[in-house]
């Protein structure tokens, strides 16, 4: 297991963010975390990446994450693409990409990878000197993902990458996500909409009100009615 989460609890003051979350991610897998508004997806991802203090146990490559700061987790290969993209809107596209490699010291290699990023995501190449805040929502999402990849993550956490995107753009983002698997990247993908995520994921975990209510192979969850029932019940 590259990541294992046990009995995870996070509270925002008196408000319980998540009550009890358990799941595992194996190396090379894409695991989807499905849940409605307020189910605890973002909170879980922030706890894993070191942005929020937590109770319970999170182990990454066997090491306890409790004492780790966000930048140590990033240096160890845990990169988050946050909900709402988290673009630095006043900086240029290129500066955003450079910030993705902020902790890296292999500058020559970073330059090569930035050039490769412009090849792979043509829109970023065209707009490299443009202010990132002026990109469309979908373009910003691509920038956010490309930026996270420049940190050379081993486990990429994507928090609702399809939020607010048109169907065509959503297709494109999910196409990128399935490419990541071929590159050997492990992905934890949070989504409200289960259709696309279950199609690209190997396994899925269903969150509801801060707890895990179901988990299993993505295909089985996609065929059953459990997800629909859970979402409807809310």
């Amino acid at each position, binding site marked *: 297991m590259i990541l294992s989460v046990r009995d995870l609890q996070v509270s925002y003051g008196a408000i319980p963010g998540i009550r009890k979350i358990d799941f595992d991610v194996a190396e090379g897998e894409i695991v989807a975390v499905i849940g409605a508004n307020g189910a605890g997806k973002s909170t879980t991802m922030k706890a894993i990446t070191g942005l929020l203090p937590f109770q319970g146990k999170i182990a990454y490559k066997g090491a306890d994450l409790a004492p780790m700061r966000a930048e140590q987790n990033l240096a160890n290969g845990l990169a988050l693409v946050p909900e709402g993209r*988290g673009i630095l809107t006043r900086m240029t596209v290129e500066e955003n990409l450079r910030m993705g490699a902020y902790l890296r010291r292999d500058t020559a290699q970073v330059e090569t990878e930035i050039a490769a990023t412009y090849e792979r995501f043509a829109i970023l190449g065209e707009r490299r000197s443009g202010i990132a805040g002026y990109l469309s929502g979908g373009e910003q999402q691509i920038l956010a993902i490309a930026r996270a990849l420049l940190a050379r993550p081993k486990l990429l956490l994507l928090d609702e990458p399809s939020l607010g995107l048109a169907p065509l753009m959503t297709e494109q983002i999910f196409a990128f996500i399935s490419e990541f698997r071929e590159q050997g990247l492990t992905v934890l993908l949070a989504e409200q909409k289960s259709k696309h995520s279950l199609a690209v994921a190997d396994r899925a975990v269903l969150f509801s009100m801060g707890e895990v209510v179901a988990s299993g192979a993505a295909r089985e969850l996609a065929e059953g009615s459990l997800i629909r029932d859970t979402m409807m019940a809310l």
Partner: protein
Amino acid sequence: MGVSIFIQQVLNGLTLGAVYTLIALAFSLVMGILGILNLAISEIFMIGAFVGFSLITAGVPVWIALIGAMIAAALVSIVIARIGYEPLRNANHITPMLSTLGFSMILQNLATNTWGSDPMQLTLEGWLETRFSFGLVSLSVVQIVVFVVTVGLCVLTALLIQRTDIGRALRAVAENREISRILGVRPRRMILVAFALSGLLAGAAGVLVGLHYSVITPYIGVEIGLKAIAVMIVGGATNIWGALLAGPLIGILEVLTVAYGGAAMRDFVVYGFMIVILLVRPQGLLGGSSKTSGGRV
């Protein structure tokens, strides 16, 4: 004759404005990241002037004294960040500002106890006194030094902020602290960097003002610090590069007012100008929408 005097005054105004620009940049660096006015900067500037004067009086060459004063001012600034700001960072914005105001009182007290409240006079090394004359207009070596050092420091600051990892990290923290953490930046460390840079600039400004007037008191921080805040506001508090335009502008305005309207009119005109700018262009000369301004830092 009239034209020469005018040119002379503009040159004098540019020198004064250069110093305002440096202090305004010092204010902006902290303002941009934390959204608070570090009121102690005026007094850090004053401490820089005294440290520089003391070193020069002790026979240290001007350049070394300048660097020494910058470092001393940066250290004071870091101490203020640690003791006066960090413990209060989650409090309402007004609280850390009051704390920096407290520090400014302490620094002034420290200065009067160490150096006395009488003006401290500096006898400049001979070469600094040299004046170059062009017809009726003349320029002293001190003025040239003030100008060159200011421009040099502004260029270095601009390069640091626009072109380096540290500069991008500072801007990232200024825009969104949580996102900066996601990217591996340590915001608290960047806050110390901002305070240190701000101290370096204020300290340099202190030495330059001291050289320019060749006399200082523990109270110079109050007056010149307020002018620098006016420069920051006129230039646009959301865009630190506004100070590069507003500093010389206000310096020239001030000097011309004194020359043609009398010294009594000076503050009336300078702060009147600031209020007019606030009324007609509240975002300042270069402050635009947050997107186009390129950020406060």
